[in-house]
C-alpha cells in the first residue's frame, strides 16, 4: 500500500464516469428503461455514454423520440442513420397522432407551438410501452428550476414532478425504486454545462445533425430571435424573410427554436464560439422558456422532459 500519485482526473473524464455509473445503475434496477432521444446534442451525448456503459455488450434499452411533426428534416435524417448504424432500437411517440386521436388540441395562431403538447404524447408513450425509467439529457445549467432536480427524479402516475418531495441523493448511492404506475426520469449529465457537452463532442468526435454548424438558411426575425421559415410557422405583419448564415445551439420544434448568426462551420469553431458566448442557450434560442418567469418549472411539474 504505497502512495502513488495519479495525475488529476480531467473534468470530462470525471463527468463521464459519473454519467456511466448512473446509466448502469438505472438499467440494473429498473425493468423497462428507455432513452429520450430528441436528435439534439445532449441526447446524442447520452447515446454515446450508453454505448460506453454497456460495451462490449449492446445498449439494452430502446431510444424514444417524441416526434412533434415539426422537425428539422436534417435531424430526422440524422436520427434514422444513427439508429441504423449503431444497432439501436427506436420507439416513436407522435404528437400528430395525439392530435388526430383527440388527446390534445393543436394551438392556433402565428405563435402556435407543439412544444407543450409533447407532454401528453410522452406520458402516453410511457404508458403504452410500460416504461419505468426514462433517461433524459437535461442539464442543471440550463435553467434555474433544473438546478434543484435530482439525478434520479421520481414522477407520479400523472408524470408530475414535486420539487418539495425529492429523495435526498447521497454519495453515489442512488435509490431507483418506484411503485407501480410511477416512473423515474434519470439525468446522467445533470452536472454538465453546455461547454462540457461541446468539449465532449469534440473529444469523442461525435457526429451531429448538420444544423449545428453554420449554414445559409431563410429566416425571419421575431422578438429579437431568428426563426427558420417553414410550413409550421405563419409570418406576422412586417416579418420579412431573408437569408443569413446561422447555426442552432439547441434542437427543438422548428416553430419555437431560434437560430444564432454564425459563420462557425466546423466543430472547433463552434466550441470556440460557445466558450466566448455570454447568453445561455435557452435564453438565446428557445421561445418556450421565455414565455413566463416560471415557464420551465410549470412544464416540469406537468411531466415535461
Amino acid at each position, binding site marked *: 500500500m504505497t502512495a502513488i500519485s495519479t495525475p488529476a*482526473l480531467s473534468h470530462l473524464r470525471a463527468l463521464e464516469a459519473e454519467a*456511466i455509473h448512473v446509466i448502469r445503475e438505472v438499467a440494473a434496477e429498473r425493468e423497462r428503461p428507455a432513452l429520450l432521444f430528441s436528435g439534439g446534442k445532449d441526447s446524442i451525448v447520452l447515446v454515446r455514454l450508453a454505448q460506453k456503459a454497456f460495451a462490449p455488450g449492446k445498449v439494452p434499452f430502446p431510444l424514444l423520440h417524441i416526434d412533434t411533426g415539426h422537425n428539422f428534416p436534417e435531424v430526422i435524417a440524422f436520427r434514422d442513420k444513427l439508429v441504423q448504424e449503431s444497432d439501436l432500437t427506436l420507439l416513436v411517440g407522435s404528437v400528430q397522432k395525439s392530435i388526430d386521436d383527440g388527446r390534445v388540441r393543436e394551438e392556433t395562431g402565428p405563435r402556435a407551438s407543439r412544444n407543450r403538447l409533447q407532454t401528453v404524447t410522452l406520458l402516453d408513450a410511457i404508458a403504452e410501452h410500460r416504461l419505468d425509467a426514462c433517461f433524459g439529457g437535461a442539464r442543471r445549467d440550463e435553467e434555474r*428550476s433544473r438546478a434543484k432536480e435530482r439525478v434520479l427524479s421520481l414522477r407520479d402516475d400523472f408524470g408530475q414532478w414535486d420539487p418539495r418531495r425529492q429523495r435526498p441523493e447521497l454519495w453515489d448511492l442512488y435509490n431507483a425504486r418506484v411503485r407501480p404506475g410511477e416512473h423515474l426520469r434519470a439525468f446522467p449529465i445533470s*452536472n454538465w454545462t453546455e461547454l462540457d457537452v461541446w468539449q465532449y463532442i469534440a473529444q469523442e468526435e461525435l457526429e451531429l445533425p448538420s444544423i449545428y454548424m453554420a449554414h445559409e438558411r431563410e429566416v425571419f426575425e421575431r422578438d429579437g430571435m431568428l426563426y427558420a421559415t417553414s410550413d409550421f410557422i405563419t409570418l406576422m405583419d412586417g416579418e420579412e424573410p431573408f437569408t443569413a448564415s446561422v447555426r442552432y445551439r439547441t434542437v427543438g420544434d422548428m416553430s419555437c427554436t431560434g437560430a444564432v448568426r454564425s459563420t462557425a462551420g466546423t466543430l472547433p469553431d463552434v466550441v470556440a464560439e460557445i466558450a466566448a458566448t455570454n447568453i445561455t442557450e435557452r435564453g438565446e434560442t428557445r421561445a418556450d422558456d421565455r414565455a413566463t418567469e416560471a415557464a420551465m418549472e410549470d412544464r416540469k411539474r406537468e411531466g415535461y422532459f
Partner: protein
Amino acid sequence: MDLLRLATAGSVDDGKSTLIGRLLYDSKAVLADQLAHVEERSVDGLDLALLTDGLRAEREQGITIDVAYRSFATPRRRFILADCPGHAQYTRNMVTGASTADLALLLVDARQGLTEQSRRHAAIAALLEVEHVIVAVNKMDLVGYAEDVFDGIVRDVIELGAAIGLHKTDFIPISALKGDNVVERSAQMPWYDGPPLLERLETVPVEPPAVHGARLPVQLVLRGEGGTRWAAGRLAAGSLKAGDEVVVLPSGTRTRVAEVRDADGLAEVVDAPLSVSVRLEDEVDLARGELIAAADDAPSPTRELTATVCWLGDRPARPGDRFQLKHGTRSVPAKLDSVDGRIDFESLEWPGAEELRLNDIAHVKIRLGGEIAADAYARCHATGAFILVDESSLDTVAAGMVS
C-alpha cells in the same frame, strides 16, 4: 482542468445565496440573459441571491428550499457546487451536499458568530470527513471590517474543531455583498494576508480516493464476444489490471483479473473513480451486488453493523424497525437493532435516545438479512457508506457511515 465538488452551508440570511451569486457573477458563469433577469427583479442594487433561488415558491417566499447544484468554471478549475440551505431541514440538506463534497464552505455571519446551526454544519462536515473546510466570515462590512471580530470567530471554530475532529480548516473574512475577498483581495482588510476565497477554491488539492486495495461494486454483468462475462461498475478505490489477485465478496471466491476496460475500451490498468469493466479468470459466477476486492486487502463480510446514521425521513424510527439497506450496489433487508447515542450539538455529547427523528445524527447498531462487505467509512468512503430505504414509502430515510 480538474473538478472540485464543494458544498456550501450557513444559517438563513448568513448571505449564502449572495456569495454564490457573486462567485458565479465574478467568475463570469452568469450570462447576460440571466443577469438581465436578476436586474429586472432586484429591488435595490443587484440582488445576486436571485441567481440561485430557483423555484417559484422560493422566489415568492424569498427562501431557499432544497439543495441546488450549480456548475461553473474558471480558467483553472471546473466546479460543481451543492448549495445546502439553512432552513428547517438543514441537517438533511447539509448531509446530502457534504456526502459528495471535496470541500465544505461554511458561512458565518460576523455579527452573530457561531450559532447552533454553524455548530451543526461544522459537526456534519467533520462526521462526513469532508476533506477541506473553509469558514468564510461574512458581512465583515457590517462590523467595520474589524480584525478582532474575525479573530474571535476563528478561535471559537478552532475550539469547536478540536472537540469534533475537524481538521484542515481555513478562515477567510469576506463581504459577499460588497465583494471583499471573494474574487479580489479586499482593500478594507489589510490585516488579512491570505488569498481571496476563489483563489483558495482554485488551488486546494483534490485528493484521489484514499489509496488502498481495489474495490469494485458490481453493477451489472455484461456479455462480450464469445460469451465472455464482464463485471461492470465504478471503481470505488484502488486500481485493477490483468493478473491482479482478487476476491469476490461475500462469496469469498478467489481468482485473478484477466482483462480490464475503461470508457474507451481495453486498458492496461484502470483507476478509481472511473467506470470500468473487468473480466475475471476461471469464469467465476458473478452477479450485481457483489464486490470485487484486492485479495490481500479485502473487507470481511458481516451481518452486523455499528454505524453513525443521519436521519433524513419524516417519520421517526425505533429499534425493531425494518428497512432496505443499500451498500454499493447491494441491497439487503436491515433491522435497526439499537440506538446507542444521539448527538447533542450543544454539548457535543452522545446521550442515549429512544428513537431517531428527522435531522438526528446517532450511533446505532443494525442487523442485516444478508452479508455485506463493508469498510470503515474512515478508511474508504465509497464502501463505508450506505443508505436506508423505507419499504413502504420507498423514500431514502437515512444516510449511514460504518464505524
